[in-house]
């Protein structure tokens, strides 16, 4: 009889194999190159343009606040690229006929695919922050890297896990790669933010259960609490996302959507 440790060891190995296979696929499909180029190029714009045509903000925090306001866009683009077709692609392309008839639990394959989408997205965000930190050091010195910078970094990583989980979930339930990729992209880019705004400014309800309500925390840590943004007529925002509530909501989104995504993917069959 095989021991539980042998069983676990096999599952872990199979998951790691799937992760490395996924990373290889992402590399070959040039997704990594595109994402890493964005992660380096976007922050460079905020360095080169002021250097040549204008001047840098007075403080490192202002610079970081401006530079990192686009990291959310990068998270959405990278997450859609890496996770958009992670499950649905195997069914649509029928590569699952090769993959799912191997001696592996299907759940280990899908968990491996999730990790294989999450890791490169986290790496892209990390490169973005690394580039920004190097710019800050170059302009303001090492003292420009404040504790808020690290807060922003870790919040961005947590937000990344929830964004990837959402897109992975779509990939596990939809039938076509293009649909799941686009739905994931537009959900985070437009659908959820619009819903959040409608709830705040028209219905006067704090949308604490909508993931994108907390995306601003990534840069809020630099300017502090207080009503953020403004309404459609320029009135100040009534609600401000709470840091700890945001963290809990992001973690819940990650774990629930990941679990449901793996469960739904497991139930799918190559019919």
């Amino acid at each position: 009889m095989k021991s539980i440790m042998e069983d676990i060891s096999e599952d872990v190995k199979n998951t790691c194999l799937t992760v490395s296979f996924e990373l290889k696929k992402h590399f070959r499909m040039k997704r990594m190159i595109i994402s890493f180029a964005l992660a380096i190029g976007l922050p460079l714009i905020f360095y080169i343009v002021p250097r040549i045509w204008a001047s840098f903000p007075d403080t490192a925090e202002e610079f970081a606040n401006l530079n990192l306001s686009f990291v959310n866009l990068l998270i959405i683009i990278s997450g859609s690229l890496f996770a958009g077709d992670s499950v649905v692609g195997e069914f649509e392309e029928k590569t699952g006929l090769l993959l799912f008839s191997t001696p592996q639990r299907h759940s280990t394959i899908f968990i491996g695919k999730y990790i294989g989408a999450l890791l490169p997205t986290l790496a892209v965000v990390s490169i973005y922050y690394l580039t920004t930190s190097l710019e800050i050091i170059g302009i303001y010195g090492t003292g420009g890297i404040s504790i808020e910078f690290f807060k922003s970094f870790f919040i961005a990583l947590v937000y990344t896990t929830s964004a990837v989980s959402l897109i992975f979930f779509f990939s596990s339930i939809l039938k076509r790669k293009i649909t799941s990729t686009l739905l994931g992209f537009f959900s985070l880019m437009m659908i959820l933010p619009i819903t959040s705004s409608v709830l705040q400014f028209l219905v006067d309800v704090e949308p604490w259960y909508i993931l994108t309500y907390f995306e601003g925390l990534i840069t809020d840590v630099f300017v502090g609490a207080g009503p953020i943004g403004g309404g459609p007529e320029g009135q100040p925002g009534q609600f401000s996302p709470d840091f700890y509530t945001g963290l809990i909501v992001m973690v819940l989104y990650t774990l629930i959507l990941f679990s449901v995504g793996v469960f739904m993917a497991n139930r799918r069959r190559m019919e």
Partner: protein
Amino acid sequence: MEDCVIRTENLVKKFGNNITAVDDVSFEIERGEVVGYLGPNGAGKTTTIKILTNLIEPTSGRACINGIDVNRYPKEALKDVGSLIGVPGVYGYLTPNEVLTYFGKVYRMSKEKIDQRIEEVLEMVNLSGWRHSKIESFSTGMERRLAIGKSIFHEPSILILDEPVLGLDPEGIREMRELIKGFQEKDVTVFLSSHLLDEVSKVCDSVIFLYDGKMIERDSVERIDQVMKQYRLIEVEFLEKLSESDLDELKKIPVIDKVEKINQTKFRIMKKEGDPASTADILRRTIEEGYDIISYSPKKADLEDFYVSLVGERGGPK
């Protein structure tokens, strides 16, 4: 070591409320056998194979490999199984080397063994020079051969193949046949589905006939051959359509055992093998009865004819 390596027990698979793709199918396949799984399109062959390879779950019943339920314990059941199902996609942006390396690791082959087997397998399937080329540049036949290579890569003792010659040219079909014969000699158990009865008859030890989800017959190819040798088949094409009464009159001609309709003017006449003069006799009597014949082709009955006689003219086993 268990002799029965593949077994299905009252296997049923339903899709939705109306479609029963596999209807109470039970069979056993012993070690070293090469068994053909035959039936027309939509008979349930691929569905059975997908259940045997854990791609889908049965509605009821079970499928076992080496005595282990495939759907409950896929890790244990499938570790010595190589499979080729349908027309699988291949990872176009990767190379054969990368794909086979991945699957080799899944089957826990060592690095050296993987390297060695990649060379051997690509040689076997005529893809030697394409080891490091992206698969997206392959033709359909090349992709098929790569999929076949993947199925035998880890040297399994059980092969489950669904329409293995699909997409192959005549040379490829011949090579596939030789490959399967080679496996036979190595005591590999092969379970393959096909609708190319002629190919199956050349490689299989026995055949299972499936029709409309039900298993209708199982027999060895040798015995079927012996049975069919007793019959002679004559394909006759008439100038005009035959009415039902014409057909009944034709059936009354002595020495004719059976008349099966191919189409309105073409019929297959079965008669017991015997004096060759009886073949000429049928021709003479048919003309005497007033039938205008434009083609008269006697031939030996084969596996296809056996299947057709099982299934009947249009549907329903006889």
